[in-house]
């Protein structure tokens, strides 16, 4: 929107199975529906604390994770629901965690900002901006040492470009040719500040300066995100080293669920424009329908199924019991 994107990849939907795109669509819908309910839980004061919604950015998480295998790693952020779901988390255990319940992914100990699911390769959301860049890079080092061909993806917002740690680990990833992909979700805002007030120069030259292959793409086009990531993942698996992918995107809601009055830092018009003209679900749906790869009723059906799964998941979370008090002392040490 405010920034030109550059990429060598043409989006080639026809080359990929329609079933896969429908799955991709379903994943994006799942995230969207999940976040609507999470917001509802907050507004109804059922959810403890605050949470950061991912709505609007679905194409990034889904496009990237679709290019990964289950055993590949991701690390996530404070705005992590989308990444977790896209990598394979199930909505019921996610809701349980958001509500601090024993059945949750972290037995209620982590909450929204710390959902981890090693079984699906998710090494954890992280509440320290940039805090997981070391973990993702270390997972890539580990994969290399163990001779596996796993790849690690580090998701972060453009705000994390402020953290020095990122440059330290990019340097090592480049030196050691580690299979790690740094996915920068540029949603234009660090909390309540436009990124241009916090970022000197451009984004990708920063990675390139460390000898890292870097691209900027439209993060609302899930097919493009998928194709690009696939190429970068293959490169990494072949031992050709790390890559950096900037995805231009937008969060529909506030920085967190409590951030309701946003006009002091961004306009209603801007929000509306993204929602209307750059919605990732709509973009994919339109392409699939226009290309006659599916018709609207199939998509509606997916939407209905997902909605009911999410509603059931939410109810599961609400009904689930809290952890027993004795658990407070458990899991401090392995």
């Amino acid at each position, binding site marked *: 929107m405010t920034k030109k994107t550059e990429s060598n990849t043409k989006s080639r939907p026809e080359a990929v199975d329609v079933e896969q795109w429908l799955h991709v669509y379903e994943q994006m819908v799942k995230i969207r529906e999940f976040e609507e309910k999470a917001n509802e839980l907050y507004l109804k004061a059922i959810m*403890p*604390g*605050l949470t950061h919604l991912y709505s609007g950015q679905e194409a990034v998480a889904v496009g990237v994770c679709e290019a990964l295998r289950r055993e590949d790693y991701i690390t996530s952020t404070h705005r992590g629901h989308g990444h977790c779901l896209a990598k394979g988390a199930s909505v019921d255990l996610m809701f349980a965690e958001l509500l*601090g*319940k024993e059945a949750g992914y*972290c037995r*209620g*100990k*982590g*909450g*929204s*900002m*710390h959902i981890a699911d090693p079984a699906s390769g998710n090494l954890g959301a*992280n*509440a*320290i*901006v*940039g*805090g997981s860049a070391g973990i993702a890079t270390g997972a890539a080092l580990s994969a290399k040492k163990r001779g596996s061909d796993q790849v690690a993806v580090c998701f972060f917002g453009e*705000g*994390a*470009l*402020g*953290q*020095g740690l990122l440059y330290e680990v990019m340097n090592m990833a480049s030196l050691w040719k580690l299979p790690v992909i740094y996915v920068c979700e540029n949603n234009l805002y*660090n*909390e*309540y*500040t436009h990124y241009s*007030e*916090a*970022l000197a120069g451009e984004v990708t030259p920063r990675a390139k300066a460390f000898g890292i292959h870097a691209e900027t793409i439209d993060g609302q086009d899930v097919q493009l995100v998928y194709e690009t990531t696939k190429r970068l993942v293959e490169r990494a698996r072949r031992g050709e080293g790390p890559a950096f992918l900037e995805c231009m995107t937008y969060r529909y809601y506030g920085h967190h669920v409590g951030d309701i009055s946003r006009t*002091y*830092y961004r306009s209603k018009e801007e929000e509306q424009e993204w929602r209307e003209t750059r919605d990732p679900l709509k973009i994919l749906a339109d392409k699939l329908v226009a290309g006659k790869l599916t018709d609207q009723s199939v998509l509606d059906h997916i939407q209905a199924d997902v909605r009911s799964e999410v509603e059931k998941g939410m109810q599961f979370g609400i009904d689930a019991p*809290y*952890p027993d*008090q004795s*658990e*407070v*002392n458990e899991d*401090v040490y392995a």
Partner: protein
Amino acid sequence: MSTPERELTFAEAVREALAEEMRRDPNVFIMGEDVAEAGTPFKVLSGLVEEFGKERVMDTPISEPGFTGIGVGAAVTGMRPVIDIMFGDFLTLTMDQIVNQAAKIHYMSGGKMKAPIVFRTTMGATRRSAAQHSQSLQAWVSHVPGLKVVMPSTPYDAKGLLKTAIRDDNPVVFIEDKMMFKMKGFVPAEEYTIPFGVADIKRRGEDITLVATSSMVQVALGAAEKLSQIGISAEVIDPRTTSPLDKQTFINSAKKTSRAIVIDEGYEAYGVTAELASVIADGAFYYLDAPVKRMGAMDVPIPFSPALEDLTVPTEETVFEMAKSLCGRN
């Protein structure tokens, strides 16, 4: 000539202290993440940028080590920065700049340089913010020679101590309890400052001494109220600054009451409570009728679930029970 009815919230008291000092001294400025238009996520600084402009209320990138270091550089060259470190947990990112640079520069230079800088940060659990947004790391900074550490427990203290912090020629870590921002209290309209190293006796009592910091002062006062109902008179002492530490006031109190509990919201092991307890156990040794008891946060990463998080922090109830048993009741 004070106006006893004037009440401010803790956040307003902090803001007023900053505004007054910024009016008084053009070298004072604020730097941190989302401190300007957003006024911080806690809205503590709301309105300051309107009065002082973006040059003096500076939004930074998300670069805690970097802007902390820049603050130190500005401080040693004539400015008086107030650095905003949003969550106390992020102190972890700034320790080199605070500890190896700011705290030591005066000594290492043989007294030739000084770093008049305030690091405002937060502490406190029970906000459902989980393990990386809830810590109370005062023990770390209190351990470091060259730093001063302030832990206000009321709007009145917050304002008076922050003004002192800004005027101090040393690096000061100023720790605010996030859960206290909306708490109201008396703050006079007249100018005042509160000296460092002077404990405040928040409630007088005869039977037991409760030494409490920041968030735990209200907890101790609540417990004291309950104790009074069963005939135990508790003295509540707030050191207000952990460094410098006014040892004599609470040692004297413990000598008088012969029993003491120390309460702080940091992790208990190797925490502030260890220092306070060992100071009393030493200083009042020949007067104590019972061992000094420590109550800190449970030694676990702070859990998210409300069902667990609330167990990790001392409460009126647990302090009351501990005091009761220490006084030989039950």
